[in-house]
């Protein structure tokens, strides 16, 4: 019998793979468009329910990108970015998220003439407020769009030197279409960023649609310590052994994978293989507004697809996510204690019930 849904809900969660631009819900998109005097294309749905309906049925990646890119364009002022991030924090506050490491794509905004400062300040203020109001800690990871030229990415790194150096930006990532743009194109970008701040955390989208070698090359060439998606790593058992040994976190996004046809159903995710090799992975929402679910929805989808996982397995998964988060050792210990207490509470409940029924 699967563990109770309430147990899953109660688990303290860390989110490691969430693009802030991908959390733009219709109920924010329309007001922002109005506030900023942005005329949406004639063909764009007119109302929140209409748009919500569209979001439920993307035909393919293009369909998704279509809406995604239009959505991005309503973000103009600092307050827009602040509100976007706050809307996300409000949602996950109800889902027992205790820590969130958030992606943003500066190039989607700077290319529209929005200053980098506007974007970062807006997001950063939301992070501060979320910690104060919801006790959710968070950090920002800047992503390079790999389909833009590496020289442009390099320029972005230079432009954001201040934020990379002072820790405002806590991590560097690499996203967008994987296949024709292998990791070795971005070695210079990653090493320059790291030269600004040796504590900068590095990660890259790899092994979602690209081959397992993109995963190992990201580790070797870009020196990343985390892999976003990474599920194609299972094609290479040697790589799995390495990932386990080096405790490289794979940030898996179940609902996104289904929506983008990487897999047909959540139960096709190779999570049991990852568990057997001892690979830490976390469950994440990727672009929640578009993929029909925030972090808890992803947890519940996996819970449903993997009914054999018990309390301790779930506890281990969550603790793996905590231990590979970019947080202090004390914070890790504190959060892991929390998880263990919850697991113990639920396990005791069962044994109490068992004892009672056999008394």
């Amino acid at each position, binding site marked *: 019998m699967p563990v109770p849904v309430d147990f899953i809900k109660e688990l303290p969660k860390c989110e490691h793979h969430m693009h802030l631009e991908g959390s733009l819900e219709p109920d924010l998109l329309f007001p922002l468009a109005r506030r900023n005097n942005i005329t949406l294309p004639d*063909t764009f749905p007119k109302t929140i329910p209409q748009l919500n309906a569209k979001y439920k049925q993307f035909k393919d990646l293009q369909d998704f990108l279509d809406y995604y890119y239009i959505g991005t364009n309503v973000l103009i002022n600092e307050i827009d970015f602040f509100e976007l991030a706050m809307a996300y924090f409000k949602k996950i506050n109800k889902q027992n998220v205790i820590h969130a490491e958030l992606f943003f794509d500066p190039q989607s905004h700077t*290319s529209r003439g929005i200053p980098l400062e506007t974007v970062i300040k807006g997001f950063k203020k939301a992070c501060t407020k979320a910690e104060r109001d919801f006790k959710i800690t968070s950090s920002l990871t800047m992503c390079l769009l790999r389909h833009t030229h590496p020289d442009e990415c390099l320029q972005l790194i230079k432009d954001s030197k201040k934020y990379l150096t002072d820790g405002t930006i806590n991590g560097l990532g690499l996203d967008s279409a994987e296949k024709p743009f292998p990791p070795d194109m971005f070695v210079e970008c990653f090493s320059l960023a790291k030269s600004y701040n040796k504590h900068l955390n590095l990660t890259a989208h790899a092994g979602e649609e690209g081959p397992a070698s993109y995963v190992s090359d990201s580790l070797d060439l870009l020196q990343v310590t985390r892999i976003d998606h990474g599920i194609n790593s299972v094609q290479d058992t040697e790589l799995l052994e390495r990932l386990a040994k080096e405790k490289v976190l794979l940030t898996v996004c179940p609902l996104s994978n289904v929506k983008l046809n990487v897999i047909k159903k959540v139960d096709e995710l190779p999570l049991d293989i990852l568990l057997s090799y001892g690979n830490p992975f976390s469950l994440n929402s990727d672009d929640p507004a578009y993929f029909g679910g925030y972090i808890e929805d992803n947890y519940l989808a996996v819970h449903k697809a993997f009914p054999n996982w018990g309390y301790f397995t779930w506890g281990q998964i969550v603790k793996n996510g905590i231990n590979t988060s970019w947080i202090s050792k004390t914070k890790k210990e504190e959060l892991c204690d929390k998880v263990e207490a919850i697991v113990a509470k639920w396990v005791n409940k069962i044994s109490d019930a068992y004892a009672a029924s056999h008394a």
Partner: protein
Amino acid sequence: MTEKTNPDTINIEDLPSDIVQSTLPFLSPNDLKNLSLTNKYFHNLLSQDESTTVWHELFHKVFGTQHTNDEPFQSKNSEEYKSVSETICINTYPDLNWHERFRKRSHDSAFYTWGCLKHSRLGYTANSNPNLLQSNINNVGISSKFGVNKPTKVPWFNNDPTADRTTSISPQNSVVQISSGGFSFQILTSSGKIYSTGSTFTGGHKGPGPLDLDHDYDPFRDFISHMESSFPRLRVPGRGLVNTTGSFNIQRISPTTTSNASIGEPHPNIYQKLEEIEKYSSQYIPNNDHIRRMFTSNCFAAFQVEDVATFFDEKNAPKFIAISSGRSHFIGLTDQNVLFSWDSPTSDFGAKIEFKDLPSRETNPILKIGCGWNFSCIYIYNIGLVVWSSRSSIQKGITESFANYKIIPNTSELSGDNKILDFACLQDNTVLYITTSGKQIYLYKDGQTITLDLDIKGRLLKITSCFSLITIFTDQHSYMLKVSNGTIDYTSLSSLDLDIQGETIISLAAGDYHTIGLSQRGNIYTWGTESQQCGCLGLGAPEYIVTQAMLGETEGRRNIKVLKPTKVELEEGYKCIGITGGGWHSGAILIKK
């Protein structure tokens, strides 16, 4: 090369046989194969084992690496000159004639590698190669399965046992030449294809490609950019119409019309073409996806055609006859005398290199190619040595790139004592060369040519260089000179003579910290340092090297150092006919005795 003959224009039956025989070496193996199938005269000529000169010529042509600077030009002082592989074949098969040796070389040779396993640069991983024994894998601390410590056969095309050894000139996928960069190996096959091992040949480093802020046209990026700009556009206050994708600069894409793409209806798979071209341009060795075929920028035209498949048809693919590798780049010369350069981490497609203001390849063909650490060097007939370390970027619709080249002065002599005999490349356009007079070593550096004053005996015959070493061969001795960061350490001059009776080093290769020597009998000798126990010496497990056979000692925490040239044990009955080395890895072509 000047006698280069176009096979289409010869009417073979009309020619006297000695002319036909002298033409033979200028035909490609495939031409010969076709000729021998369709023409009785040729068939007879080639199937007679007695026509050994023809077969020797053919051997020299196909396997003698005559178009790279691995071997010197032939000169009148070296009439007896034989390339490394010919020399070893004579010693290995003294009783066979050249036809039989040719057959042996084509059918019974295989590619072996050892050393660091990173990026699957050896052409396999610790688990993917059935030929790799677990006992030959070095584990180092957290980096388990870090290196391979014995020459190990690379999974290659299966030898077709039904291939007729008597009529076929050469199997299609026979390994003709190997070369190695800092992160990979390049392999040239008898059918003129270039393969590269591992997941990256650049290691993310810039090679002698386009200069900073300039970059080759990338059809994939262009395709995505177009696709995105076809999306509906937005009217933004103060900025007019902008594309909605956000990922390309507004200035770069001039917005056309507002798209009327109907949102909500099914779209065609926009990535379909991309996927199709991806598929065609990703060709691997059967059952080994760690060795990939390398294509050229010619393939970009596939983006313009409907039928991608025909564009990748073999008939349209350039046929390569020589390769040479630098640290993060390599170049290849085709049978049409066209040069391609793979030199940029942002493109896996070789750029066609042209030389503005130089005469055409018809009158002044490229005779030899070579690579230094970060530049390329070629010898052009009647022009001399030409070097470059950057080139113009490839623009949309144009497949050529122009080398920012320099001609090394006084290297164009066609005959006499000042004719170039051999050249070797270091880094930053620094080239060493010798002439047929065999008396001086010239060093071209920073635009100046000087002669080296070295205590060397004998007439200079051949000069080779690796990333850390220069080797000088004279008619009496051979010598080594160390190089670090492109600077020659003149005090390091030492003799390369082995202590072993009757063994002479005739070819040398080196990686960052290790050296591989090949003797005239086809034995491999290695020495130097195995960083992190990467296994690049090929002498066995670290414990074996240090405590059992006592060949060397540990240095620091994880390095193994072997001072004396030490013989590498090959599989029973195998001889080596070609070596290569780079970074932390080594490679060899072995042949069954």
